[in-house]
């Protein structure tokens, strides 16, 4: 390692960018060469000075408003994502709610319509029978009205004197 080699590598040595054997060779040469050692100490001082200046500048920066602003922006993004998620979830939620509501309505209707033992005879009685007849008006003497429940067949009896089959 010569002084020319050290002069060529001194910036990389100061930034610790050289491989370890080269770093060691540069350091051994500087330890035995006062010229290269002075050169390296000046460069090291300049680096420290620049770093100090940069740190001072960085410390002087007012970042108090930055993070709240970033946080607020991040919150807005999160909120937007949340609404997006909700909006995406609306059809499924609406479908689910609709299904539940429909089930509830059907159940309520079935409960309302389901015949109880008391109402069943009424439904059977209201069924139209093949011979069902409604008498709106009936006049005559000594009349009787009978109805056969199975077919609804109605008979009007007149008990006329001497009204047998043959007179």
């Amino acid at each position, binding site marked *: 390692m010569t002084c020319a080699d050290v002069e060529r590598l001194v910036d990389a040595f100061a930034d610790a960018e050289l491989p370890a054997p080269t770093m060691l060779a540069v350091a051994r040469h500087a330890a035995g060469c006062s010229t290269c050692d002075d050169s390296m100490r000046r460069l090291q001082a300049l680096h420290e000075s620049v770093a100090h200046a940069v740190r001072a500048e960085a410390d002087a920066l007012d970042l108090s408003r930055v993070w709240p602003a970033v946080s607020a922006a991040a919150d807005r993004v999160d909120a937007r994502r949340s609404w997006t998620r909700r909006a995406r979830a609306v059809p499924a939620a609406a479908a689910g709610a609709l299904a539940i509501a429909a089930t509830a309505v059907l159940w309520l209707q079935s409960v309302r319509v389901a015949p109880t033992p008391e109402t069943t005879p009424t439904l059977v009685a209201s069924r139209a029978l093949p011979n069902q*007849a409604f008498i709106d008006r009936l*006049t*005559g003497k000594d009349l009787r009205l009978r109805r056969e429940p199975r077919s609804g067949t109605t008979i009007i009896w007149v008990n006329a004197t001497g009204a047998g089959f043959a007179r």
Partner: protein
Amino acid sequence: MRRATVALGLLGVALPIAAAVALGMEVQVVSVRAAERGPSDVELQPVRARLRRLVGYRSFRVVQQERRQCSWRNPAEFTIPGGRSLRVMPKGMQDEAVVMQVRLLDGRRRLIDTDVRLRNRGTMLLGVGPQAGRTDGVLIIMLKAEAQ
């Protein structure tokens, strides 16, 4: 083209209605002798049990029957054994039932005078005489109405 289709449609609806109005309904009157004893006619077998429950007799024989086409609002008179008559006047249809006036006449005397709504193709009965207990039998008139 559309007018012709509409006209044909209206004609298709109107013609059956007009035909039904013109034809009126068919009335069938069957006079049956009911008695305590004796055989029953085969044609009455399907309704024998029903007649038995209604009138109490066991034997049923067809004495006379008549089927006639009746027009609406025009009375039709059917001869009944024993010198009586049955006058039927169809008035119209209401809820699948035939609305009609039915009069059972003994000469000029009205034995029965009624307004009924009988289910279309249904049968109702008129009984003349004492109910069960008489051996000489009674007269049962089966009245069936069928609108076209």
